């Protein structure tokens, strides 16, 4: 009779720490992330937090919130926020709204499509400063636009389009629309085209297809497009100075921040205004993103 050898009790060993960490995704590869993180922390987070701290230590004393109070109590300062919204919101809305029908009509390939998109990208490449300079001449009372309007008897007198709200708005649209358009097109192409075919076999005409199929599936992308367009428009700075009226009608909040920091050398106030600018913008974006969260955002099947 053979006696079965007793198997020594097996003590379960815990896997090495390295393996446990690797399970959760932490391993040496993460080191590659370090330069990027260091960079962001040093050159972005730190200055931003420093500025935030600065904003709570006003030059003239009066407690941490003195600068903030000053901003909201002084109409000259407070109104800049309103002015910026007055420019940014319509510009973003116009850009996004106009991009939808255009993206729709132009989504199928056609001859010259690449030329068209290339031309559209030109204003983005040229940037806000050049656009402002060009508008100063094109929209001037003696510029070509007014000349044309006069020649065709659409107006009796040249209309004021520079050194006011309109010049800046035009500038924001010229540089902002291509961006919104290309983004919208990209989202639109991410929607499976057979969905619309299926809808039409079920009896949906073009409006029903748009309303029940395309638009709901496009809406999350449009929300993002709006957010980005709004950021661009809200950040307006050189245009507001060059082709606007920086001490009056188009005194946007970025100008106020710059003025405080670099012309009055009140860095604390400058930082304060920068913080207010950021927070206001983030509130709008958060609201839009919250709304977007209620929409269906899953796969839409297209090739994107």
């Amino acid at each position, binding site marked *: 009779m053979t006696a079965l050898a007793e198997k020594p009790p097996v003590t379960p060993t815990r896997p090495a720490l390295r393996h446990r960490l690797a399970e959760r995704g932490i391993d040496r590869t993460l080191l590659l992330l370090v330069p990027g993180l260091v960079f962001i922390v040093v050159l972005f987070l730190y200055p931003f937090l420093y500025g935030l701290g600065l904003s709570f230590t006003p030059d003239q004393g009066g407690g941490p919130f003195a600068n903030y109070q000053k901003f909201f109590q002084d109409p000259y300062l407070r109104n800049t926020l309103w002015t910026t919204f007055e420019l940014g919101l319509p510009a973003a809305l116009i850009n996004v709204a106009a991009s939808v029908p255009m993206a729709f009509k132009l989504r199928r390939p056609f001859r010259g499509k690449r030329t068209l998109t290339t031309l559209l990208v030109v204003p983005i490449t040229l940037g806000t400063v050049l656009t402002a300079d060009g508008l100063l001449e094109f929209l001037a009372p003696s510029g070509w636009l007014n000349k044309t309007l006069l020649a065709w008897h659409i107006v009796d007198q040249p209309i004021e389009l520079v050194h006011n709200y309109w010049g800046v708005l035009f500038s924001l649209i010229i540089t902002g629309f291509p961006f919104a358009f290309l983004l919208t097109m990209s989202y639109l192409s991410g929607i499976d085209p*057979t969905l619309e075919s299926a809808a039409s*076999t*079920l009896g949906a005409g073009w409006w029903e297809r748009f309303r029940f199929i395309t638009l709901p599936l496009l809406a999350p992308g449009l929300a993002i497009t709006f957010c980005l367009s709004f950021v661009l428009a809200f950040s307006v700075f050189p245009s507001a100075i060059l082709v606007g009226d920086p001490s009056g009608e188009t005194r946007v909040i970025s100008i106020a921040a710059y003025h405080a920091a670099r012309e009055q050398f009140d860095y604390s106030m400058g930082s304060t205004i920068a913080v207010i600018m950021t927070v206001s913008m983030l509130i709008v974006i958060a609201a839009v993103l919250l709304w977007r969260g209620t929409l269906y955002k*899953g*796969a*839409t099947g297209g090739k994107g």
Partner: protein
Amino acid sequence: MTVRAQQFTELRLDGVSRSYGAQTALEGLDLTIKCGEFVALLGPSGCGKTTALNCLAGLLPLSGGSIWLDDKRIDGLPPEKRDFGMVFQNYALFPHMSVRRNIAFGLRMHNVPKAERNKRVDEAISLVQLGEHAAKFPGQLSGGQQQRVAIARAVALQPPVVLMDEPLSNLDATLRLEMRTEIRRLHQTLGLTTVYVTHDQEEALSLADRLVVLRSGSVQQIGTPEEVYAHPVNRYVAGFMGYRNMFELNVIESNQSLVVLGADGFKLTGVNCEDVGAGGGIAAIRPEDFVLGGTDANRLEVTVEIVEYHGRDQSVQGTLRSGEPIYFRTQGRVAPGDAVTLSVPQDRVLVFSPDSAPPPDPAAT
């Protein structure tokens, strides 16, 4: 489900063609479909079957020809006015709508009142047995379930014709068999006229009342499954329907009904299917029609190369003395290296003309 599909007598395609630029996707398709019929469009990719379906649906305009529903011409109508149901290959379920809303969509577009709409949606859901998934979204369903939703959505409107574009091709093998039976059951229950596109000949044979075999945009043969299976009309159809052996041989003698072919020391006598005269001919034989050690006049000496076990029988690839491969099935047992003799009755050797096949399409779409 008590579907009263709209009645009509026939759906007629008259010389339907479609081309883009220099490419012809579909040429002169003539087909008359009777109410209640299940017609399968069969062929490899690029043969024009999906094009034909899309033309029927109205998703593609015709380059030539016309389509008639009884005496009403419909090829000028957009898809939303044709009222044909369609099941897409990728199902095209609306991802942001629940199963219920997907199925109800067509009814909403036709302004069916709410109570009636709900009733019909419920009927459709129980027809495809998706009751417990009605509130789910397509992203939460499996492939087979999505497919059933797509079918339910198409039939909820009780359309006169249902179009199906390779609905089973995205499913795995077992599911495909299951769903095939489902589709058959639905067709028998509802009696809806169906036009079904597939590249799988087994599917077409098991589902269809009639087959339309296409290649490079032109019709090769139209007939019942039996007709096409047993009497393919040219080498191309034969090849597609499982006549795996296609021997190119020289004609020794021929008359109207029989042809004797030979090469390299063997002779085959077969049915003259295409008026084959002097010159060359193609002998098409099914692997199943060979008999191991049989007694028919047609005899072939074969060396066995590769044997695949299929349970009841074996699927064998061998070589003839000339080195050409030959495929046969046997319920006997052979092993690689064996030398065997096969025979085949002469009515199971179909002889076709070597140049009857249309030129290969310039670019498969």
